[in-house]
């Protein structure tokens, strides 16, 4: 592969993966904070307000890191992917532009009020600020996902006389069916991260014997929401997302499953290592017929393998795609089990004293990050070798005037700055955790 292309790809992958670490937590916490503010408003109990205020502090640190690492993303479309931007900017510029106008302003204005304005806004006004931040952050998520969805499944365009991509239906772009499912799947992934973060901290407080009242509230809210979210993330959203891949990206689905040869009663791989040279799955552990069932709703249906597609249309990193997909699905299953058990124990009134499960919740905290990152990699690596599926190859989209040396320089720059950010972010969040909810010191 061209070294400049490889660097531009890694540049984008690195900055967006890092950015998404903060975003997925804020997507989840925005909802959870809104739930807490609603409970506070309905019960009039100051305890819920304290809880919301505590999570708003953690939210604010994450949000700040999400914002500062998000600004480079919009720039990079132009700086590192200029030929793509020139060709497709007239289309996806709509979703990106709307994100700026409709969601950034909403989020940033009301976050200021959520953090600084509790006294001046009053009870209902402050609740409304939490609502606005939640709506803003999810709207932002939708518009970004719609941008990606158009690259996965281009719709609402026509090709001009010189092959230029011209938008001809704005509503098709906005209401892309791929965007709808991918958004719900992605957003629920964020809610899972938020719930595990809150549950983990709740478990931590209970195991530590500190801030126990708050720990119990954290667990009640997060386990209830978490059970719902972990179930919905798999079905129907994950299932439908898979169906879209099967319908529109045949080689991607085959590569995700390590399915090299077309045949009836296609198995679903649970474990294995795809061997692209030999065109087979090493050490396979498979469920026969399940892939046929998932894709065509029939046990004996034929599913096209990679052999049904020209090799130049195969994803260019099949093992990475296979592992990302399987890690995501595997962890998703574990999340359902943990949240299911926790919900059961919560309902029986035994969760707060059941130490093994508290430990499991505590330690599971990083796993949703892994699952969400793997999920994004599945989507993005799966789209290869296309930048816009079926329309523009990745090799045709990067900024060819920006040399590999310059791309490497800025990549190292981002790596350096982001390492510092991660350290600071973790340090500040740890301080908030140690301090705990309750009395609110003036942070700003």
């Amino acid at each position, binding site marked *: 592969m061209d070294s400049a292309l490889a660097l531009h790809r890694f540049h984008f992958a690195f900055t967006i993966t890092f950015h998404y670490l903060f975003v997925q937590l804020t997507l989840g916490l925005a909802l959870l904070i809104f739930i807490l503010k609603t409970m506070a408003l309905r019960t009039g109990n100051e305890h819920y307000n304290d809880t919301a205020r505590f999570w708003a502090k953690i939210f604010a640190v994450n949000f700040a890191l999400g914002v500062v690492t998000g*600004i480079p993303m919009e720039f990079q479309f132009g*700086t590192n992917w200029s030929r793509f931007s020139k060709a497709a900017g007239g289309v996806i510029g709509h979703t990106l532009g709307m994100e700026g106008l409709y969601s950034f302003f909403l989020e940033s204005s009301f976050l200021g009020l959520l953090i600084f304005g509790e006294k001046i806004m009053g009870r209902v006004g402050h609740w409304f600020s939490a609502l606005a931040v939640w709506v803003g952050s999810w709207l932002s998520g939708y518009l970004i996902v719609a941008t990606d969805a158009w690259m996965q499944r281009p719709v609402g365009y026509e090709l001009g006389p010189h092959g230029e991509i*011209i938008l001809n239906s704005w509503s098709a772009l906005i209401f892309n069916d791929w965007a709808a499912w991918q958004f719900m799947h992605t957003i629920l992934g964020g809610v899972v991260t938020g719930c595990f973060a809150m549950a983990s901290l709740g478990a931590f407080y209970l195991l530590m014997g500190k801030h126990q009242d708050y720990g119990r509230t954290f667990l009640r809210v997060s386990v209830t929401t978490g059970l719902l979210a972990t179930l919905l993330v798999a079905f129907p959203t994950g299932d439908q997302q898979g169906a879209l891949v099967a319908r529109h990206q045949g080689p991607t689905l085959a590569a995700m499953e390590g399915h090299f040869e077309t045949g009836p009663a296609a198995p679903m791989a649970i474990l294995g290592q795809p061997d692209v040279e030999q065109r087979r799955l090493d050490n396979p552990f498979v469920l026969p017929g399940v892939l046929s069932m998932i894709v065509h709703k029939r046990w004996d249906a034929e599913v096209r393998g990679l052999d049904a597609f020209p090799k130049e249309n195969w994803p260019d990193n099949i093992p990475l795609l296979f592992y990302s997909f399987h890690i995501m699905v595997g962890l998703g299953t574990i999340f359902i089990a943990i949240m299911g058990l926790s919900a059961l124990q919560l309902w029986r009134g035994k969760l707060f004293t059941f130490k093994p499960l508290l430990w499991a919740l505590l330690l599971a905290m990083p796993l949703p990050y892994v699952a969400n990152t793997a999920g994004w990699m599945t989507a993005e690596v799966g789209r290869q070798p296309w930048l816009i599926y079926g329309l523009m190859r990745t090799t045709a989209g990067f900024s060819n005037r920006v040399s590999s040396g310059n791309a490497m320089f800025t990549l190292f720059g981002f790596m350096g*700055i982001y390492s510092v950010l991660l350290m600071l972010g973790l340090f500040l969040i740890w301080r908030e955790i140690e301090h705990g909810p309750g009395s609110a010191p003036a*942070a700003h």
Partner: protein
Amino acid sequence: MLPVIWFCIVAVMVAMYVVLDGFDLGAGIVHLGVARTDRERRAVIKSIGPVWDGNEVWLLAGGGALYFAFPALYASSFSGFYLPLMMVLWLLILRGISVEFRNHIDNPVWKPLWDTVFCFSSGLLAIFFGVALGNVVRGVPLDASGEFFLPLWTDWLPGPNPGILDWYTILVGLFAFFTLTQHGALWVAYKTENGVRTRARRIARLSWFAVAAFTVLVTVVSFRIQPQLSRSFAAMPVGFVFPLLALAGLTGAFLFWSRQEDLKAFVSSAVFVIGMLTSVVFGVFPYVLPANTDPALSLTIHNASAPAYGLRIGLIWFAPGMALAASYSVFLYRKFAGKVQLEEGGY
């Protein structure tokens, strides 16, 4: 007609960005100078704390509008100005973090560190934005495919082999620095009391003289560097309304400063910024990125814009979005109006 409308929209959004984020950048520049104690520094930070993030959104929203209305311009300029843009991003990151994180920990290493980062990143950003404007006025070596790549510097001359930095763009960079220093100092004076206000007013006065001198210098030099400027004003003398606006703003800033009317002085400074920016935009029009090699290769609003359908439908979603965004801004500024009160702390 549609490209002209979108060109005006993008120009207005950029102007909004410079006026709004301009004052918080300026507050950053004067931060170390006007505020001595921790309490004073908290006051300066608090004067921009609730709003700086929203101000910066104008950059992103303006970028978004540029992206879909003029994709060829976006692609060409962002890849061509690759290195300085990346540095702008790093500075924006450092600055954002310093505002957000400063007050989290009360200790003698943490706060001075972020105060310094805040001050330097704000100052450098002001200079970089000025340099960027200088590059656009001077023109860049566009090739037949509408692309270019500029190194950071070559021989420091705005001649046939330009770099991002040359004596002309540095001059514009310094002009931007003094302009935003004045702008930020007037904002801080308006939002604070006692010692901070006195010192901010003093800095505003000093920078006013620098701004006035640089206005004359940069204007004269720009007309020599970019002949399109004189052509534009000669073809449509009505355009002189923009430089007159700038002049009125500059005069107003001085007069209202003398009368101790901080808010009016700040608004005058904003008028000056808007007047200067619109003068440049008018002067360069219909170019959006002039080529300094062959004028025929320049990007204009016509050859860089997206097709009509997209521009038309864009207006439909843009209008209500803009109204909403403007109303949040107004609401937010009203909520935090008046002098900074340190007692009612956020969290």
